């Protein structure tokens, strides 16, 4: 049975918790959590240390609240989706009528990788919709840039307010629409330098060899592996589902490697491709998902009649 604002709702009740102070965050979070505990629901907090401590204090260390360790949970969007889906399935199997979660993205999400976290926020409207989940994603309106807040409003059907109210977001768009928009990641100064690899219509093996030969030795093998797999998947997908010519380029910076694969097609048809491990005959979805699982950032966008996949390993942010 659903309780609180989500009573009578089927599936995922997805809210943004937009706050301008610790006080506002507490005013939104505490009643939400306490009511869940009182109703005997699984109640979880997925905050960084500072906000987790704030909520612990404000709830008097209520033992009915579970604190999820941050870290890897929010390292990559598809990893977060996979971990949450598994956890939610377990709660439902255990008989939960509703699960409450309040969480926040890691500070690193609010930089060069925002676009894939925006896609995450949109994708979960569908990816969690089979669960009786009520979740709040907390965003600080004083520090989150306006363009990111605009994405938050477009990916959360409603907002939870500090006064206890719930406001529908009239600007909300469903994942099928949001995820098919072209979302070019921020310009990376590294891409203004000369690429170390530039290939037209390579076979996957040829692209792998070129990438392996060009990666500077200071990068760890795990980064090289991530690129080797990603370039293979991207080139294979481009040749199977895209349109020639397929252009592969690699840039090597001090802290990161950036690879782009551009073809003249439209990109994946399935809006959630990359965020969920789709099955066989998925139009390249599993390959794209593997890229998302191995790289530190994946951007995808359509521009001038071409589809580009931009894959980063290493540190996406430091210039």
């Amino acid at each position, binding site marked *: 049975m659903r309780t609180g604002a989500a009573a009578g709702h089927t599936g995922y009740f997805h809210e943004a918790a937009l706050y301008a102070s610790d006080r506002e965050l507490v005013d939104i979070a505490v009643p939400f959590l306490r009511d869940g505990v009182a109703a005997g629901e699984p109640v979880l907090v997925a905050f960084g240390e500072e906000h987790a401590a704030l909520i612990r204090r404000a709830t008097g260390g209520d033992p009915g609240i579970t604190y999820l360790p941050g870290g890897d949970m929010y390292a990559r969007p598809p990893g977060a989706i996979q971990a949450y889906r598994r956890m939610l399935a377990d709660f439902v199997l255990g008989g939960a009528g509703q699960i409450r979660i309040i969480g926040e993205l890691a500070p690193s999400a609010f930089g060069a990788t925002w676009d894939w976290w925006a896609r995450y926020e949109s994708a979960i409207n569908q990816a969690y919709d089979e669960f009786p989940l009520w979740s709040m994603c907390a965003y600080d309106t004083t520090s989150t840039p306006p363009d990111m807040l605009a994405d938050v409003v477009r990916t959360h059907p409603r907002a939870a307010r500090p006064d206890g109210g719930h406001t529908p977001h009239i600007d909300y768009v469903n994942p099928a629409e949001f995820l098919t928009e072209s979302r070019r990641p921020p310009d990376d100064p590294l891409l203004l330098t000369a690429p170390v690899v530039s290939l037209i219509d390579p076979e*996957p*093996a040829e692209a*792998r060899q070129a990438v392996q030969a060009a990666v500077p030795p200071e990068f760890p*093998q795990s980064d090289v592996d991530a690129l*080797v*797999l990603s370039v*293979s*998947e991207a080139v294979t997908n481009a040749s199977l589902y895209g349109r020639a010519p397929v252009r592969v380029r690699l840039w090597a910076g001090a802290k990161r490697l950036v690879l782009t694969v551009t073809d003249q097609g439209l990109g994946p048809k399935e809006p959630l491709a990359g965020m969920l491990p789709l099955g*066989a005959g998925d139009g390249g979805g599993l*390959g794209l998902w593997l890229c998302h699982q191995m790289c530190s950032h994946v951007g995808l966008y359509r521009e001038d009649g071409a589809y580009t996949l931009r894959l980063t390993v290493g540190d996406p942010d430091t210039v």
Partner: protein
Amino acid sequence: MRRSGVVADAAEVGAHSHVCFAFREPAELRAAAREFARTGMASGERVLLIAPPGEYHRWRSDEWFAEVLAGGQADLLQAETVYPRTLADPYAQVEYYSQETERALAAGYTGLRVAADATTLVGDPVALDGFARYEHLADVYMAAHPLSGLCAYARDVVPDTDLAQVASLHPTVTPQSSPFRLYAVGAGLAFAGELDHDAVALLEAALDRIRPDDGELVVDMTGLGFAHHGAVRSLERWAAGSGRRVLLRGARPLLRRLVELMELEAVRVEVAA
């Protein structure tokens, strides 16, 4: 560990024990057969040569062949005397070579070495399927016994896709024959080459033709450069479908990561030390 690789020309075939030799000119095959025979003769093996149709007399009149044939350690046979028209029973053909190997040993040779043109044995889909199964069974036998083979296929007769199906079941092949090889080592198998997406159908054909013992199948992966997730998925499907488990041993860390992400049940990975 068995020798495995891609041999560019006839000079290299001698060091290998089961070679799929795809040729364009009959002279290429004669050169390869000579080289293959020479290695065997030098190590005291009995040698059987099976020439392509129409080539029997040319082989016979080849100076080097003529000399070794006269010596008695080597024999030149017609394909029809060794192979039935289609290989209805792959096991029987392996049994034939197993008996010939035993006979060679009994006669004091160190083993048996066969260089045979098999072009006419893969003519239609049924024949191809039977012969591919035979190639694998023979490979398993060779991995454990002193039999070695050079299996020759004429490129202008055997379509590339058919050639790939038989080539992929040899430890050693000529270039542009098959992107990967699946062959016998010890009690298990080994992969070599690369398993890209466009090799998935070929991989499935190869898996369909192997008949490993029951229990966990150990596959040596040290010679495999890359596996696309589609190939890994085929392996998982084959294992699950045949009710067995597969251990990929000596794999690269990337393959372990891939298998972990795909959450496979029948396939597990051990990374090379």
